């Protein structure tokens, strides 16, 4: 029994990380109807940025987090403005998929050349502290990262509901033409959305880098994880990403404990496939365009 509870607790903590990794992807998918295959690159890029900050500049990854988010925002919004916008305007239906995939290839290649394909990890002094609660043992870093992730998802949710830019983004998601008729600069809104999505991707990368070892090639895995979480939970809503992430995390750790680690990814991909076939708009399918 205690193994089961421990597994579920680990799953929820892992799920929190999956949620924050997916929330930016979900935002971009929900607002722009673009499957951003470069999302994993922003995640892994965030991890490497944190690695540079920690190992060469000596800055704690958590302190570097806001700076890395800002970098992610700038890179993401510029990418949207100068690469995505012209591609989507001219291209065929999968132009966005191809352009983001191409960008991912370029970045992974550069990361591999700069950092080699070796497995890296970030382990600050407090990395190996364990909290004990009866039989349960909880990794302190994971708990802290989970907390930060929750706060950030809540903040994004508030931002989307309450702030002016959040309202404008939601309006543009509902009808680009309508928003433009009301004087919204839709290109600017898309750039901001992509920027926010990328910033959250990079932030999740910092947290992931503190908990798990990483390599450049893992970006594909994080893109797919984000996709699984979003198809499970529902597109476009932070709550959907949260729900999908936790379900996914628990499913992953349960598989790992009771079936064996080799089957973890297979079970996750199978869940994605079944979800796509049965209910492609997710458990909390929202009213965003992509889910309709």
């Amino acid at each position, binding site marked *: 029994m205690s193994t089961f509870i421990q597994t579920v607790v680990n799953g929820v903590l892992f799920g929190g990380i999956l949620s924050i990794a997916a929330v930016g992807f979900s935002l971009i998918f929900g607002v722009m109807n673009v499957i951003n295959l470069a999302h994993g690159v922003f995640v892994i890029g965030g991890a490497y940025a944190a690695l540079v900050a920690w190992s060469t500049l000596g800055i704690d990854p958590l302190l570097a987090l806001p700076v890395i988010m800002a970098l992610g925002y700038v890179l993401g919004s510029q990418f949207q403005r100068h690469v995505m916008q012209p591609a989507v305007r*001219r*291209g065929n239906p999968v132009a966005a998929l*191809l352009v983001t995939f*191409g*960008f991912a*290839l370029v970045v992974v290649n*550069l990361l591999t050349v700069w950092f080699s394909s070796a497995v890296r990890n970030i382990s600050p002094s407090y990395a190996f502290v364990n909290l004990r609660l009866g039989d349960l043992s909880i990794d302190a870093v994971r708990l802290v990262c989970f907390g930060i992730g929750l706060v950030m998802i809540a903040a994004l949710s508030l931002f989307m509901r309450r702030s002016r830019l959040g309202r404008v983004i939601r309006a543009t998601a509902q009808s680009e033409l309508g928003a433009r008729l009301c004087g919204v600069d839709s290109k600017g809104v898309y750039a901001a959305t992509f920027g926010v999505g990328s910033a959250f991707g990079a932030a999740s990368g910092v947290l992931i880098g503190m908990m798990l070892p990483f390599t450049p090639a893992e970006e594909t895995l994080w893109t797919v994880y984000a996709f699984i979480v979003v198809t499970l939970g529902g597109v476009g809503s932070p709550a959907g990403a949260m729900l999908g992430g936790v379900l996914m995390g628990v499913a992953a750790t349960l598989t790992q404990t009771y079936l064996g680690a*080799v089957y973890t990814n297979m079970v996750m991909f199978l869940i994605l496939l079944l979800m*796509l*076939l049965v209910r492609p708009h997710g458990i909390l399918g929202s009213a965003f365009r992509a889910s309709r």
Partner: protein
Amino acid sequence: MLRPLLLLLAATVLLALLPLVLGPFHVRVGLSMFLSAGLALSWYILGGFAAYYSFGHTVFIGIGAFAAALSRDLWVSGHWAGQLLLGVGSAACVSAAVAALIAWPILRLRGHYFTIAMLAVALVCAEAVSAFPVFQGAMGVSLPNIAPPGMRVERFYYWAALALLLVTVVIAMLIARARLGYGLYAIREDEDAAMMLGVPTTRLKITAFIISAALTGSFGALYAFNLGYITTDSVFRGALSLEMIVHALVGGMGSIFGPIIGAVAMTALTKVALADMLEYHLAITGLVVIVVVIAAPEGLIGVVGRWRRNRRHRGRNP
């Protein structure tokens, strides 16, 4: 139909004679051009005709490769032609069977959802081949060399790939002129309208999917024979899926010769022109993809066509 077939035959004979004058390196480049062209064209049968973009077609390369390797007992002794036919044939059959199994549920999805579902299929199959010991995917399987004694290995596979490419081109040409092809074009333009007008969309999509999978699997088997030793990671590679799409797009999606031209051009670029920059191979492929999507969404064929139209236009009105 006769003129293009004669041209095709002439081109094939010419290409078949080339290894007699080329060195081993260039024969190998030719071989990988044929393999990429065949794969891109197999992908195009679904992706180009019906605009169902599969992002996981490498699953059929992997299934074909492993089907050929694991059916070794069937073909391990005998004449080389029989070995080749049995290996490639079993790959085609297994790929077609898997495709038939997943076709109906998968092809109900459209657009992005189909694309990503195929990616998920590829990931699931790759993980399964690695995880279950029956397939020996994690350890790898080796294939014996089946080139007839006395013939240079690269020449043998060059000719084998050329023959399979010829078969694929003929199949694609036949589809393009048959009811199947016109039905797929109708699906590409507007699937709902096609369905309303009585086009049996589901049946046509499934047929195209199975043909595409069988051809991809055959090329996967040939790829595996040429490698000699395969693991999950070497044949279930996302990069292979991407290459098929990139070649078709670079060449142009309007004609069955687009994927072939794109594959030849990209292979020449990456294997010959950039041979010394292997480190940046992926980055350059990525950049080419972005540039093509933005600057030449109709591919090389589209660019040439536009240039010719412009010239004719200028000639008329000086």
